[in-house]
């Protein structure tokens, strides 16, 4: 239950951010009107309101959708990132159409510049929590006694590990914006448990998933 709440809050936050921003624009004082900058940019850098997402994300695989799209935030010199994604799997691939909400946190300790425009993050580690809506057998209220199935059929958590390649483009204002391609190897709680209890029969490769994605700063 707590995880569902957390997810709902995380999902709502970008929307709230956008709404607040619009509200702020509307209520800005008349004297500033006309000279109002959408995102005030001090000379020393690229400051934006804390709640404004820094990038958009598009991903396939990783157990969170055939296509998952969303927004994300960079924290601590952009080495930590929090992405909020909404994924979709059509009936053809799952027996019912699935909507999957995911919050993913990643940390990339090394940022290696390659030439002027390119950048490699050789290691990205992190984790995600996802909530799937729309399964065929969706645990109706009163269907099972408490603890009948000890696991949640909808909420998955798991680790991710990957790399990223980024291209740095410059905007007309002279700011840098990254467009990056990433891949992540991941797993989930139920796969990991299966592996831990069957070390002879299952291999790590059996429980891995792969995701491919794009991130673009804006």
């Amino acid at each position: 239950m707590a995880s569902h709440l957390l997810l709902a809050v995380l999902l709502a936050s970008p929307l709230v951010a956008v709404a607040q921003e619009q509200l702020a624009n509307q209520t800005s004082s008349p004297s500033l009107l006309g000279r109002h900058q959408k995102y005030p940019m001090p000379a020393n850098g690229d400051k934006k309101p804390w709640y404004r997402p820094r990038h958009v994300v598009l991903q396939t695989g990783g157990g969170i959708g055939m296509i998952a799209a969303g927004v994300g935030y960079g924290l601590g010199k952009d080495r930590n990132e929090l992405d909020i994604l909404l994924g979709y799997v059509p009936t053809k691939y799952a027996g019912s159409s699935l909507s999957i909400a995911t919050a993913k946190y990643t940390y990339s300790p090394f940022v290696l510049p390659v030439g002027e425009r390119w950048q490699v993050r050789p290691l990205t580690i992190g984790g995600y929590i996802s909530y799937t809506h729309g399964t065929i057998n969706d645990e109706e209220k009163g269907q099972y006694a408490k603890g009948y199935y000890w696991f949640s059929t909808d909420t998955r958590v798991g680790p991710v590990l990957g790399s990223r390649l980024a291209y740095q483009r410059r905007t007309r204002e002279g700011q840098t914006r990254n467009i990056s391609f990433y891949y992540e190897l991941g797993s989930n709680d139920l796969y990991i448990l299966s592996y831990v209890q069957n070390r002879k029969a299952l291999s790590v490769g059996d429980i891995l998933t792969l995701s491919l994605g794009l991130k673009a700063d804006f």
Partner: protein
Amino acid sequence: MNSWYSCGCTLALTGLVGCSLVEYSPNQTHMPATERALTNQALQRLQAHPKGKSDTVRFVFVGDTQRFYDETEQFVASVNRQRNIDFVFVAGDISDFGLAREFRWVHERLQQLQVPYLTVVGNHDLVGNGRAIYQTAYGPLNYTFRYGGTKFICLDTNGREYSFGARVPDVPWLQQQLQDTTGSRHTVVISHVPPTDEDFDPALVPSYTAALRGCPRLVFHLSGHVHRFSAGKPFHDGVTYLTTYSLAKHRYHIISLWGQRQFRLETVTYGPDA
């Protein structure tokens, strides 16, 4: 250009493990073409070695492979050492979380059996999108087949997975199958949840057991779910109900059927305790 090197290596490694890793959801139904309609595939293999109507049918009966992959490998090794086995029957709960990969992990092991294997759907196989996954991987939830003069009726009795409601098991279908005795000498009914269990829809226990009682050709009713062996006539109506071990118990049954309603039950222990 160390960074290029490391990046290239990682990408190449990723490329090697291939696209089947790109999983849309653990609940997805996608299966490689060779791993679909496994019930039909098994029945075709079985019918390729037909038996006379009066021959003894001998099959391995076990339940609940769920998340016991190490044990499943030991089970397969043991069954492959047996002689004169016609087929293996797994009485449901093939998977534990109803996830596609689990079905594949189990099939990967059970396909090493020298004889075909058949299944019936279990409650764990119906978790999440398990129903669609089972239908893709194996086939219909209710089906019948005939072998050596025996008609096997396999059906979904996991009432709780449908929040009860007097729809599962499909009793009219069962009655119809019990009445149609063409080409068979006796009948065996196999389901995952036995009608003595609280996960069986209580509203359907009377009609289900009455249907079985009304079939003089019925040898017995076989189930899994309880992970242990039990045998008896719990409804005091002459109908025998048997349950079998889960894979975790390192035991399975070999059932022989012959004559009008004769049968023999052998218990085999395997793995580290054997």
